[in-house]
């Protein structure tokens, strides 16, 4: 859409959604396009990127507005709004995901998907009115009877802020702080007491879940016609001043780390996202993307001993107790080790949400998550549904 040398404005569309599960990208700054090329992003996916040299002077309050649209879904599509919890699923697609099935409950998720991260907490404390407004927009757009903002009991300030700005048609529900409370299926179960059936979307039980940051972005998109050009990113671990930043999409990771005061110890791993599900960063020049909820700088002392598939399973059953999906991770691991893709199926590895709990508690450091991912890959390539 743009080429090297083009002048771009903050909010201007620079990349258009191509597939069904894809979102528009807008320039976060006024500047000049320095190049358009392909790189591997944090996720490992090869993607075309637009490098922009920002102007020295920026007007952060102005931006190119997205076109006015009748319906919310179209506004979100144009604004490039995606889930800011981490998965970055396009919000407009999510709105349509019910396929005609009525949505009775909208849950706005403030349960912080990971330990270490505090971006959801910060969003609720700083922008409670935008979170509440976003929740109401989603409620109206889906016709839901119940609109819930869910957060954990370790965030009293956020709860107070929300209560101050809440409306009678929005429920604030405080849940037990417990990982992975913020995982979609677990959250839905906590709120409505129903399990989303395997292989189905939350809409199948009449629920739609959006992150609090997404709700705030939705408010901006609908009320101000502002596209998604920035997000809150937690920068923590061994950095000078751990903090939450309102970061422009595309900011180099190295810049955010420097803004947080740089490293205060011999950091050996940077995690994009949280420590349970995040990705280790190999290149600090990579940009923050819409799904980057946090950067965690860890030292060797923080890191667990390396996992190894030759380690024996001693059948301690800690993984079975830890699994929020009630899977038997040890059994999936043993079968995956043997490439027994028939025998593995009765343990339904495709139900795994890869929260990491099993591997975290494994006393012999078996690479359970990697083995399960491998099993999922193989089963999906074989077309196994269950």
């Amino acid at each position, binding site marked *: 859409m743009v080429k090297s040398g083009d002048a771009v404005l903050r909010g201007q569309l620079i990349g258009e959604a191509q597939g069904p599960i894809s979102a528009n990208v807008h320039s976060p700054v006024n500047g000049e396009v320095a190049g358009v090329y392909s790189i591997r992003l944090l996720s490992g996916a090869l993607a075309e990127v637009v490098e922009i040299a920002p102007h020295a002077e920026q007007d952060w309050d102005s931006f190119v507005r997205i076109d006015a649209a009748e319906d919310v879904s179209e506004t979100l599509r144009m604004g490039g709004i995606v889930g800011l919890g981490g998965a970055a699923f396009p919000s407009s697609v999510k709105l349509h995901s019910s396929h005609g099935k009525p949505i009775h409950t909208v849950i706005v998720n403030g349960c912080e998907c990971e330990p270490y991260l505090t971006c959801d907490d910060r969003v609720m404390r700083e922008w409670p009115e935008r979170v509440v407004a976003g929740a109401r927009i989603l409620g109206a757009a889906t016709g839901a009877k119940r609109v819930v903002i869910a957060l954990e009991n370790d965030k009293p300030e956020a709860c107070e802020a929300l209560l101050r700005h809440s409306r009678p048609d929005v429920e604030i529900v405080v849940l037990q702080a417990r990982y992975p409370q913020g995982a979609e299926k677990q959250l839905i179960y906590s709120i409505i007491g129903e399990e989303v059936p395997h292989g189905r979307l939350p809409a199948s039980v009449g629920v739609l879940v959006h992150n609090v940051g997404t709700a705030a972005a939705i408010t901006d998109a609908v009320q101000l016609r502002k596209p998604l050009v920035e997000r809150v990113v937690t920068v923590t671990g061994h950095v000078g001043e751990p903090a939450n930043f309102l970061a422009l999409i595309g900011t180099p990771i190295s810049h955010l780390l420097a803004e947080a005061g740089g490293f205060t110890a011999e950091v050996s791993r940077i995690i994009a996202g949280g*420590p349970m599900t995040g990705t280790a960063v190999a290149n600090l020049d990579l940009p923050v993307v819409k799904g980057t909820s946090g950067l965690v700088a860890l030292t060797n002392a923080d890191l667990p001993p390396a996992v190894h598939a030759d380690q024996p*399973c001693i059948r301690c059953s800690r993984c079975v107790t830890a699994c929020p999906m009630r899977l038997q991770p040890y059994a999936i691991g043993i079968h995956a080790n043997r490439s027994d893709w028939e025998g593995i199926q009765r343990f*339904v590895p495709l*139900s795994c949400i890869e929260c990491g709990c099993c591997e975290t508690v494994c006393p012999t450091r078996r690479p359970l998550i990697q083995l399960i991912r491998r099993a999922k890959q193989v089963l999906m390539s074989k077309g196994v549904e269950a």
Partner: protein
Amino acid sequence: MRADPGSRTWRLASSPHVADTVSCSRIMLIVLAALLPVTVWAVVNMGMLAVGLLIACVVSAVGSEALWNWIARKPHTIMDGSALLTGLLLALTLPPRTPLWIAVVGGIVSICLGKMIFGGLGWNLFNPALVGKAFVAISWTGVLSEQVVPGGWYRGIDVSAPTGHDAITGATRLAIAAADKAAAGAYGFDTTQHYVPLLFRNLEGSLGEISAALLILGGFVLIATRIIDWRIPAGYIGTAAVLSWTFGADPVFHVLAGGLLLGAFFMATDYVTSPMTKIGRFLFGCGCGLINIVARLYGPGPEATTWAILFMNGLVPLIDRLTAPRVFGWRKRNG
């Protein structure tokens, strides 16, 4: 603006990037610590006989694992502590005057036939220490029972030997009680008199039977530190107590006497050979208690605890299958 100008080496790995501090050898250490009081008390009371047995069992167990790995060109595994634990548990199941060569055979069989032949730690179906114990108990029945004499191995604790049971040579008060019960339908002596010696200082059985109180203490340490699941000892001891009471026996005596407590807290709770589900572990414990008491009251000989746990070990795959959880979002059980 680079946060990190130097050429740094990143340690990359996939998630999760954090872990609990509980390691395999740490678990083994806690179990060893829980067994320490009863082991020390056995040594204090039985002296060099206990020391010799402990050394024989531990050295033969650890040594045969090291040798096996060396011959099979496998990585060394003795540092995981499990062979040490197997040796210690085996020693605790043997009477103090067991000939050392029998103890050594027990240690070798425990590790080689009980564990390594299945593929090493994690793959064995049966509790290795009990495999070794069962082996020596079958092979040298007479030799083992001669080492247990009424009144203790070197000095008397007053046990009035039952009359009319010439066939029983050198049986423990438990064997005497069982035989009496089977023959006459009543105990030949008052079992309540034996609570205190069984709890604190019992010189008639194996090393591990020296003090039921110390076994219970160790068991509670393991439950409190969440190393073992309370469901196994609760199911085991609960069933044993209820069942022995139902059969007209003294439940307190039967829980305290013999190898039952050592079995319930330290043998049946072995991770590798017990079920993976909570309900499965409770049923497993109940099964152990059931077989133990039935075998003790109506069985042909000693070693009821050994057979009970080994039998239930064999049922573990079935129990795991039958108690497989229903995975979130599914209607049927998965696994």
